[in-house]
């Protein structure tokens, strides 16, 4: 069973924050401290997780019966479009930016990000574009309804002829989100390249830092292509150009290339940091060194490079020539190699380890299990004949939810629980965490596992009504979705009550190795300030006689002192 030995030298202070009770105000200000910005991002993102989840449950509520009875089909189109957009651009990207902001400076021993003001600006764009996106519910004609990928010609139809319409607000919001992400990416990459602790060469960086670097480089390389496509789409919609209009000599498939050139790598932008979280957490909770550290690190860049040349696998059924299909089928399948390296490294890390099944570890194990399943259906979808058969069915929906929720969101929850004591200075309630995990795992499995069958039987996605033969799968899926909704209650309860009145956290409650665990909980304003440790080894030497930093004991003692 899980027994966590808290360190005896607990910090007894009632309020772990130095500045007193009014301190919460800094979370509502233009604060340039990466730790404040990180929490701003995460809390904002969790709010949008609830909103996106609500939209998702409305979609599932409609689909619980075959006819379209709950909503008008037009409203349904708006609902799934906004569900996808909110979840991707308002929940996942801000959430991962938040985790990255919190973790990168302490993990590499930097006092802050390289450009703190740019960092704050990038965050404050999030509420701006969120409001723009949500306002589209209230404009005539309703929100964007052409799916989160916004393919022309559907997306450039403007039936009401109004200058400000749902689609126009959608494109504006997405472009602003892109600007915010680019600001973040410039900041993260510069920070990682320039501000690492002495001795921390590339092959001594934590895997999370490797994956963040890989993911943010991918943002820098891919995102501008989407921005370019979005600008052209905007011109087509609002200024009467015909880049993507067939009747004006344009080419709608060109937009699909722009869109997927970024939006496929975007999946890796989201999943790579989660791979990083898995790689950080498995060694801690298995008490073993990470298996094949260097291979896991380099595999991140293998994924980055390959993911830039796979985008056409989303377009196998949109009139791509045969040579292109074969080429992209091959490159897509190649991605299974670096990903497989990581999966085998994690399993080898777990093998024979002394597993502690606490909440973060449960989320990691659940996420890994789901990722293997989602990866296998991914390889199925990469196969051209299978894809042409099941493309645009619920099989695809089930596959990407297995990656995006059952893997990425699981990894995010694992990360939130794991680093919660470090950045709030409070322990969370283990029991509530386990309830959250159980409900999430059951709900997610019930929600998306049956949809694979519905998809293989031919149920098309994005339609409000369906043939009664698919009813059973949809009823199970909807029940799963509502369980997922319920799962948010123990989570919110846990986060809020632990943060307000949880037990004070010691500097290193999980006995983990890593620069962030050599800091007090919560870390002081500029992390290590003038005493940055000199790194000697990679942070995974559990049970080995290899010191992590020079004079480790000095920093451990220091981390217990009040700041």
């Amino acid at each position: 069973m899980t027994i966590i030995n808290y360190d005896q030298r607990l910090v007894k202070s009632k309020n772990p924050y130095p500045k007193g009770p009014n301190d919460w105000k800094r979370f509502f200000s233009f604060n340039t401290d990466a730790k404040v910005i990180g929490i701003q991002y995460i809390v904002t993102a969790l709010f949008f997780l609830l909103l996106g989840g609500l939209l998702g449950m409305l979609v599932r509520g409609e689909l619980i019966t075959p006819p379209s009875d709950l909503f008008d089909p037009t409203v349904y189109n708006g609902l799934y479009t906004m569900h996808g957009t909110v979840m991707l651009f308002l929940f996942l990207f801000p959430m991962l930016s938040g985790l990255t902001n919190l973790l990168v400076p302490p993990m590499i021993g930097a006092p802050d990000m390289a450009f703190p003001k740019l960092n704050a600006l990038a965050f404050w764009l999030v509420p701006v574009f969120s409001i723009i996106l949500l306002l589209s519910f209230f404009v005539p004609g309703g929100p964007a309804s052409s799916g989160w990928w916004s393919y022309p010609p559907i997306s450039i139809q403007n039936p009401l002829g109004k200058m400000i319409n749902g689609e126009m607000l959608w494109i504006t919001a997405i472009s602003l989100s892109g600007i915010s992400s680019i600001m973040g990416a410039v900041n993260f990459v510069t920070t990682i390249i320039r501000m690492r602790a002495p001795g921390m060469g590339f092959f001594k960086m934590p895997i999370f830092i490797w994956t963040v670097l890989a993911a943010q480089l991918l943002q820098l390389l891919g995102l501008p292509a989407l921005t370019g496509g979005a600008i052209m789409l905007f011109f087509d919609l609002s200024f009467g150009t015909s880049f993507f209009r067939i009747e004006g000599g344009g080419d709608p498939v060109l937009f699909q290339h722009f869109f997927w050139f970024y939006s496929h790598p975007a999946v890796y932008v989201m999943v790579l940091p989660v791979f990083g979280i898995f790689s950080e957490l498995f060694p801690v909770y298995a008490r073993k060194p990470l298996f094949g550290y260097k291979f896991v690190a380099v595999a991140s860049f293998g994924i980055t490079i390959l993911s830039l040349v796979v985008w056409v696998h989303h377009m196998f059924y949109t009139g791509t020539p045969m040579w292109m299909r074969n080429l992209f089928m091959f490159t897509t399948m190649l991605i299974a190699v670096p990903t497989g390296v990581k999966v085998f490294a994690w399993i080898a890390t777990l093998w024979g380890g002394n597993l502690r099944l606490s909440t973060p570890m449960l989320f990691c194990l659940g996420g890994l299990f789901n990722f293997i399943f989602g990866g296998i259906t991914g390889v199925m979808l990469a196969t051209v004949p299978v894809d042409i058969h099941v493309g645009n069915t619920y099989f695809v929906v089930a596959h990407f939810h297995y990656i995006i929720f059952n893997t990425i969101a699981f990894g995010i929850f694992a990360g939130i629980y794991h680093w919660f004591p470090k950045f709030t200075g409070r322990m969370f309630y283990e029991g509530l965490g386990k309830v959250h995990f159980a409900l999430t795992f059951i709900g997610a499995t019930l929600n998306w596992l049956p949809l694979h069958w519905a998809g293989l039987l031919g149920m098309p996605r994005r339609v409000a009504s369906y043939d009664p033969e698919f009813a059973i799968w949809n009823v199970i899926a909807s029940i799963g979705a509502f369980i997922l909704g319920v799962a948010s209650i123990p989570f919110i309860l846990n986060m809020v009550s632990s943060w307000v009145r949880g037990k004070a956290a010691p500097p290193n409650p999980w006995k983990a190795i890593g620069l962030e665990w050599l800091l007090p909980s919560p870390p002081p304003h500029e992390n290590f300030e003038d005493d940055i440790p000199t790194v000697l080894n990679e942070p995974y030497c559990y049970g080995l006689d290899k010191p992590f930093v020079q004079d480790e004991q000095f920093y451990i003692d220091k981390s217990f002192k009040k700041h």
Partner: protein
Amino acid sequence: MLSENKSPTINHTPGHVKHDGHNMTGFIIFLCSESIIFFAFFVGYGILKVTAPVWYPEGIDGIAVKEPLINTVILVSSSFVIYFAEKSLHKKNLWGFRSIWFITMLMGSYFVYGQYIEWSELSFSLQSGVFGGMFYLLTGFHGLHVITGILLMGLMLYRSFLPNNYKGGEMGVESVSLFWHFVDVIWIILFVLIYLWQ
């Protein structure tokens, strides 16, 4: 692990790292990313040009090259001029820097003026088929970058009059100069694509 009684020898690494030192790195990363938008537009231009059934709008079978060529020569040579401005700043020749820098600004402004004249004399518009859209999108997006560059140069010119401005290095001037070279290279590709490949 070290034993407790051993006195620690701590390397005092300055934690308050000067943020200015990273500006150039960040700016180069940003420019690489920015060039991808142009790359996307260029690829889009190429694909549409090769595949579109009708390329030029009705009544037009090409665009004049002569005036844009003069414009190009001026913009490209301003890239050399700005190099000398930067060089005089390295030699602490402040007035030399200011005057050559100002000449670069004038050359950039002439380019924008030339672009404006060209736009106002064209017989097709943004809505004139794929070519019309692409032409105004590319030249307009590049023109925005030129205007940004001139404004940034103006800011650097203003800052050169502030006391102690170059104490922490000449990052600002170097970054703007790099941006100007970037705008230049983009224009050369654009010129080849739009004007020479007809």
